[in-house]
């Protein structure tokens, strides 16, 4: 006599055996501990309650999802019992329905996600107004019980958000720069990513174009023109500068071949930097700008300019700081350090301490007057921890002090302190100060990332590079830095993404970039009080920018074979 269980098994199982010990299942998955039972009761109640409430607001979707869930759960259970999974139910069993909790949570989460997405679509599209006329927008929104988004605020102010106060008659400059950078970018993506172009002249031409792009875009955006009446002077100065650079080129080649050493490379680099600064200074006397960057640059334009400058400028600086911090060069000898400290201490003791002692009225004042002894303490610490290595000392102090203050502090200092430090009469625009401050800030963080990468290179690489005869510069350029930077690409790109978004802090120091414009929109009479929509737009822009950077970095890593070679 077959039991009802066996006959059920036969009928349902279609001949396949069902292995199910219901007692054991309940014992292990439901009543194992009272916490588990309690949790499952709560979860089941929440799921049912949420499903019913969602059913009221979105009947079709909820019904569909619940139906699909029920069917797939049933199928998975059936397949599990008969031990014959197809790929879909196997995946479901392993990923979504692996336990009772997970099964219920799957339904809950899918419904939750659908609710969130629908709420957003509802707010942003269904109940929203896309009109750019304030009155019309009000009329449209008044139709709904809960008004949606007022996109008119963003659409009407699109030009403000993008370029803020850039003069309308000069807009062609923006389009020119955009097209130029776009074409260059498209060409580079094609040429740089292919192996067969590795040493092609086309690639070198493109690299040349990228090198002049900063100056070119700056010149285009602010309209650099010769001062009227000084065109001839400009041409003469240009010739002088070019001749000087050519002479410097051959001179540096001569010096480096005669005295190949790290000191000479350093001297030559300093000479080149000085020469370039002098050239710019000399030429700038004959050039003038049509537009003032402080006024003309705003909105997304300013964000991009500051972010790109900070990213591009901080990278070489950060690498140099990292190398400097790790340098092993012979330092200042001990006798020189202590000697200089002793001389300074003696001088200040004679000049400051002794008179202060005479005037002192308390122990505290006497102790404070002994400050010149700190020179000796500093000398001792310098010798002990840096072995007299000035480069490492400077790099460490720079990195640690910049990392110790927030970006906003650095920005404020740059805006306020800079003018005090400059010689009288010399003015630097806020835009430049902020750009330089952001670059210097990022360089400190980047230096630590690169230093981590340098530490990851095995010592054998340095030795092999030495053994085959490469000098220090070649060793770092060809062997060490390529490997080190490949290793820390994720950290560096993360740093850049953070920097891109940190440009929003500049709104606090007075420059009006993207966030600044977004804040101003709600103060306009047309769009008074409309705050949410500009921020949503900002969110989209920053997300897109970050996404583009992150995916480019993934592609770059793949092409460089990071983690594979």
């Amino acid at each position, binding site marked *: 006599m077959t039991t009802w269980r066996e006959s059920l098994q036969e009928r349902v199982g279609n001949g396949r055996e069902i292995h199910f010990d219901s007692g054991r299942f309940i014992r292990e998955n439901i009543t194992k501990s009272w916490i588990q039972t309690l949790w499952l009761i709560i979860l089941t109640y929440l799921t049912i309650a949420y499903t019913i409430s969602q059913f009221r607001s979105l009947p079709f979707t909820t019904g569909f999802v619940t139906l699909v869930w029920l069917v797939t759960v049933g199928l998975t259970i059936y397949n599990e019992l008969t031990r014959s999974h197809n790929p879909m139910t196997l995946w479901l069993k392993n990923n979504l329905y692996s336990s009772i909790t997970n099964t219920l949570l799957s339904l809950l989460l899918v419904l939750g996600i659908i609710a969130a997405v629908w709420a957003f679509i509802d707010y942003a599209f269904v109940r929203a107004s896309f009109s750019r006329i304030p009155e019309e927008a009000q009329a449209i929104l008044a139709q709904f019980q809960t008004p949606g988004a007022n996109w008119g605020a963003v659409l009407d102010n699109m030009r403000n958000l993008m370029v803020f106060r850039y003069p309308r008659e000069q807009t062609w400059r923006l389009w020119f720069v955009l097209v130029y950078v776009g074409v260059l970018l498209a060409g580079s993506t094609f040429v740089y990513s292919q192996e067969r172009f590795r*040493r092609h002249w086309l690639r070198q031409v493109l690299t040349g174009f990228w090198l002049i792009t900063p100056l070119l875009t700056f010149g285009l955006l602010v309209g650099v023109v010769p001062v009227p009446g000084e065109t001839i002077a400009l041409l003469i100065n240009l010739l002088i500068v070019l001749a000087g650079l050519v002479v410097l080129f051959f001179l540096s080649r001569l010096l480096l071949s005669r005295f*190949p*050493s790290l000191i000479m490379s350093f001297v030559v680099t300093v000479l080149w930097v000085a020469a370039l600064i002098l050239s710019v200074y000399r030429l700038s006397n004959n050039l003038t700008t049509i537009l003032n960057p402080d006024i003309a640059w705003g909105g997304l334009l300013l964000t991009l300019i500051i972010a790109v400058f900070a990213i591009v400028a901080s990278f070489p600086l950060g690498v140099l700081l990292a190398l400097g911090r790790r340098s092993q060069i012979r330092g200042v000898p001990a006798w020189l350090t202590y000697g200089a400290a002793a001389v300074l201490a003696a001088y200040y003791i004679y000049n400051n301490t002794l008179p202060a002692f005479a005037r002192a009225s308390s122990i505290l004042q006497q102790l404070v007057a002994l400050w010149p002894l700190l020179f000796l303490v500093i000398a001792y610490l310098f010798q002990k921890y840096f072995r007299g290595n000035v480069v490492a000392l400077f790099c460490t102090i720079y990195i640690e002090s910049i990392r110790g203050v927030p970006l906003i502090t650095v920005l404020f200092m740059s805006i306020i302190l800079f003018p005090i430090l400059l010689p009288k009469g010399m003015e630097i625009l806020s835009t430049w100060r902020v750009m330089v401050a952001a670059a210097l800030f990022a360089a400190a963080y980047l230096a630590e990332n690169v230093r981590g990468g340098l530490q990851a290179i*095995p010592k*054998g*690489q340095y*030795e*092999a590079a*030495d*053994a*085959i*005869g*490469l*000098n220090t510069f*070649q060793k770092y350029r*060809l*062997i060490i830095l*390529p*490997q080190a930077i*490949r290793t820390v690409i994720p950290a560096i790109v993360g740093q850049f993404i953070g920097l891109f978004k940190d440009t929003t802090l500049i709104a606090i120091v007075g420059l009006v970039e993207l966030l600044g414009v977004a804040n101003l929109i709600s103060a306009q009479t047309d769009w008074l009080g409309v705050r949410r929509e500009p921020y949503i737009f900002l969110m989209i822009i920053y997300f897109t920018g970050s996404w583009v950077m992150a995916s480019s970095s993934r592609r770059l890593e793949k092409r*460089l*074979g990071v983690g*594979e*070679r």
Partner: protein
Amino acid sequence: MATTNATNTNTLTRAEEVISCSEVHKWYGDFHALRGISLTVKKGEVIVILGPSGSGKSTFIRCINRLEEHQQGEIVVEGTTLNYDVRNIAEIRREVGMVFQQFNLFPHLTVLDNVTLAPIHVRKWTRDHAEERAMHWLTRVGIPEQANKYPGQLSGGQQQRVAIARTLTMEPNILLFDEPTSALDPEMIKEVLDVMRDLATEGYTILAVTHEMGFARTVADRIIFMDAGQIVEENTPENFFTNPNNERTKLFLNQILHH
């Protein structure tokens, strides 16, 4: 301590001595790693340095191309004194090639780039010339087909042979081997030793630190036994293995020849 001058140096001129070290001392902090090493190597000689671990063999070899600095004594390589002068060091490193125990290939470059890197940047050859010479040496060591692969895709023996090709493409006069086969399994050891044997017969001056006794016995012109930072014994291979002079050497040979 047997000095090389005991053998028939009367007929050899000073110009034939490619490496001469006299009373070389090196300290690592307080640890006295090299205690007065004096050695002369003639052109074309194959010298194998044996010794227990910690005896200073690798340290001594690495002093010759300035991967380590010696504090006392003099090292002269092909007429150039080894000191703090960067130009001297660069000159010596151009003529002295080194093969490491851990291969130390550059993982981000292809095999061909690994081999042509130094000739292009140090000897200033054109890319075509460097590649032609590189392919010649890669063929000589037996792996021309691996030229466009990355080191990570090669086996240990192949990597070590690429390292040897990288050294040879620079056309050095002196080759230093720092336990080249210690990181390889027995089958690959033979590949590398065959290459080293060929190089020895072609007239390169070779200083090898190795534990391969068979290689030492058959290929070496002189065997140097070091212990605790000093040269304990210098001898020809036959005499060294059959009739060593020093007690310490006998102890060492007893230990190793009974595997």
